């Protein structure tokens, strides 16, 4: 269903998506081994199945996906 409360760069609690970088290509969606990511037209959301394995972070060519703030692998300061 349509995710609620999304703004660019919003924190899903599991992974963060920088909405202004995302190209909506679906590379992360197809790569996710848990099927945790859903692309609603141009709107990316993670659900509770996410294990923070990081495959989506590596497959994204524009660096739109990051670990949440405070996570040891987060690039956000």
């Amino acid at each position, binding site marked *: *269903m349509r995710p609620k409360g999304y703004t660019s760069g919003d924190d899903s609690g599991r992974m963060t998506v920088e909405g202004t970088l995302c190209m909506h290509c679906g590379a992360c969606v*197809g790569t996710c081994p848990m099927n945790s990511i859903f*692309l609603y*037209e141009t709107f990316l959301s993670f659900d509770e199945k996410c294990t923070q394995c990081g495959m989506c972070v590596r*497959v994204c060519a524009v660096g739109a996906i990051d670990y949440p703030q405070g996570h040891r692998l987060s690039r956000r300061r």
Partner: protein
Amino acid sequence: MEYDVVVVGAGPAGSLTARYAAEGGATVLMIEKRQEIGSPVRCGEGIARHFLEECNIPYDRRWVAIEVKGAKVISPGGKVFKIDERHAGNEVGIVVERDMFDKTLAKHAAKAGAEIWVKTTAFGLLKENGKVTGVRVGRLSENMDIKAKVIVGADGYESQVGRWAGIKTILKAEDVTATLQYRLTNIQPDEDFPNYCEFLLGSIAPGGYIWVFPKDECTANVGIGLSLDRLKEPNEIRGYLDRWIAKEPRMKKAQMLDMVTGAVSTCAPIDETVRDGVALVGDAARLVDPITGGGIGNGCRAGKILGEVLGEAARTGDWSLNQLMKYERGWRAILEEGLYRNWMAKNKLVTLTDEEFDLIIGTLAEVGVEKLSIHRILKVIKERHPQLVEKFLDLI
């Protein structure tokens, strides 16, 4: 609301399925999540000619960017192996305008009687006693359940339909190729540009390759595919492509017209592509060639088979899993062996060093190979450099 068939995704595989199913007598709805079919383009845009005729796709200048003479395979040390387009495999011959190509195929589907909705996202499958009986969609502001005899997952690399149906489409990192492409213009032509599709191999693109597919006399799709298991850092892929472009004299003054990201599967054929009430086709069915990363030809060919099977189901009233298995067997008969062989070969190719690529491509350039098949190439290499083919012996 009820249809015989709902096709999720209006790419080439979806449109071919919709067209042939509708032509065969099925009531068909094809949905597309984006507001425009074919756009944004997420593709290198190289296709072969041979499948067009097979799938009854009439040549139309409106979706042709340029026709090339063949392929150039270029080793890290600059050895060049040129091959005529007729023998270059599945992704060389025509460089298309994918947005126009996809719209043309959707028009064919519409003409055959298929209904098409854009800006319509699939949210999940409806199931009764383990059988898929429909799909829940959001169309603009409206959510609705649509009943169907068969839901077709033509929803691309990021396919949800297969996963919802319980079909194993999950990929290992080594079978995922992450991609980035720029459309560059103001490229300085050389003696062969824009007459060849170029494939550049070696450590410039670990576990993948860089491609230059010309669009016109000074414009090309310049892209890179890298195996996901070689990528450690975010944004690494861009570094690889930018470093290569920076060193390429022809592209010194080149400027970007667009940018494309994405991923393709480079896996072995998956175990099943149908379940009761559901079928996968195209990239969603993991039909992409594991060596080239090309999926249009295979997607169209499989789409035609699936559409014909669904049309037959409409005429006979047999929508059973047994009937759908005709599609499963049909695509495997024409594609499975090649996909499996190329997956095996890919697993060897990703282990080659730059020196080995130089030797192999240098040898091919000297000897000349009339047909670009793995088997033929290995035979040639074996004659000249037996030590090199040791890695590949099980493929010969």
